[in-house]
């Protein structure tokens, strides 16, 4: 009684992501519900001092792909015929790795006569948030990971403008290098985050604000400053309180990330902030962002950790929006290791 009948059929996207270390497949329902999400991490067994040897070779993706695909279908209780479209990460990433995903998607789409959609990897990270809540435009996405630190303005779906980015190291890379200098176990980011809760910010490490009005970032000076501080102390035979280094370093990183995000948000008059990428898991960054925007009308959205790292669910979320907009890739879809997000959104 009184209920409006919705006769719209459920729509399912099969999504594939192989841009770097991970072979991932997901099935997404109506753009916002994760039916299955399988990630075969290729980095688990190859730890060495302060780092990981990545198994990024195409061969590893090829070996994993059929298993991951099969598991995604088994977990979903769906058959290929229920799938409405196939979305795949087209770039950026490693060309050999990308090609495995793209070839798989093309073969499946061709064999089963399904529409094919190419997705930008970073667009995927941003759209991961739509698995939680729909976007409100204009929005500002802060993308922070080992390989990226970018501020991306979106005035509408599939409208991306890079308004700031790192000129040298990504925030996650700085975390990793500092962790290595402090001889912390891998992965270093969470370890620094944990130690940062215990120390005192007494080193006053540099904060790179760059030119007036710039929304770009720079973390290599900070990284060098931390490394020098640790080395100098060692040479003088002094003991450095690792927790104090971690606290000072983390507050330098978060100060700049948060303040630049805030200024850009004000400048462009956005309605919400989306945080994306692996560093979004950092508790120092989360609380600093929420504090800074506490008295503001701008909403801050941070996805759960499993959506921050590389996965295919995010590709499905981005793919669904593209599907609804009518974007279709041809059979000539190719891996594009240098795919530019601004150019991508114009196509």
């Amino acid at each position, binding site marked *: 009684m009184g209920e409006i009948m919705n006769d719209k059929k459920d729509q399912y996207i099969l999504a594939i992501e192989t841009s770097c270390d991970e072979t991932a497949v997901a099935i997404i329902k109506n753009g916002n519900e994760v039916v299955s999400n399988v990630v075969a991490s290729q980095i688990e067994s190859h730890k060495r001092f302060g*780092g990981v040897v990545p198994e990024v070779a195409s061969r590893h993706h090829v070996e994993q792909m059929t298993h991951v695909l099969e598991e995604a279908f088994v977990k979903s209780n769906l058959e290929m015929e229920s799938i409405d479209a196939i979305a795949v990460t087209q770039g950026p990433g490693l060309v050999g*790795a990308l090609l495995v995903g793209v070839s798989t998607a093309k073969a499946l789409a061709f064999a089963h006569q399904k529409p094919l959609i190419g997705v930008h990897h970073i667009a995927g990270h941003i759209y991961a948030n739509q698995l939680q809540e729909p976007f409100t435009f204009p929005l500002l996405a802060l993308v922070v990971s080992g*390989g990226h630190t970018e501020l991306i303005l979106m005035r509408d779906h599939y409208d991306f403008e890079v308004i700031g980015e790192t000129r040298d190291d*990504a925030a996650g890379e700085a975390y990793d290098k500092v962790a290595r200098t402090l001889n912390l176990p891998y992965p270093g980011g969470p370890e620094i985050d944990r130690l940062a809760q215990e120390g005192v910010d007494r080193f006053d490490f540099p904060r790179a604000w760059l030119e007036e009005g710039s929304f770009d970032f720079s973390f290599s000076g900070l990284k060098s400053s931390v490394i020098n501080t640790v080395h100098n102390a060692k040479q003088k035979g002094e003991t450095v309180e690792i927790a104090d280094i971690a606290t000072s370093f983390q507050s330098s990183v978060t100060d700049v990330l948060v303040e630049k995000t805030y200024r850009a948000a004000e400048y462009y008059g956005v309605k919400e902030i989306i945080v994306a990428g692996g560093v979004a898991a950092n508790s120092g960054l989360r609380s600093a962002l929420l504090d800074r925007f506490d008295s503001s009308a701008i909403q801050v959205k941070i996805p759960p950790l499993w959506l921050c790292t590389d996965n295919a669910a995010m590709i499905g979320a981005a793919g669904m929006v593209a599907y609804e907009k009518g974007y279709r890739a041809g059979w000539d879809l190719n891996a594009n290791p*240098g795919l530019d997000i601004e150019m991508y959104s114009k196509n």
Partner: protein
Amino acid sequence: MDEQLINTHTPLETQQVARKLGYLLRPNDVVTLTGDLGAGKTTFTKGLGEGLGVKRTINSPTFTIVKSYQGEIPFHHIDAYRLEESHEDIGFDEYFTDGGVTVVEWPQYIEHFLPEERLNIEIKKGQDDHRQIILRPVGRMFKHITKELFR
């Protein structure tokens, strides 16, 4: 020995040398870049990209291993640091032969995937901002390019 030396005194000067080299490089050329942390490998790569017409910000590929850009021709920036114990092919030939220019940092980790003919560059840190750029071309064309750079 066809080794050539260039002395620079500021990061801007280093970037300008790299930009000029960018003008001279041809499709499918590979340049290796070695030097200590803070020697100016990133500065050099930014200059090279500029010379090839890349408009985007060139930043660190350490985590992603490769970052690719579109200039007048494609420009690939490889950091093989994370591949030290890997010995795996990540599709290097796709980069070296797609009509673009590739710069490789930490080339010693992927030595057997690199083309024989290439331009090896070392940047040595001196006092303050003083740098010594050492060019070691392998192959006739790279020797020619190195000579051109000094004109």
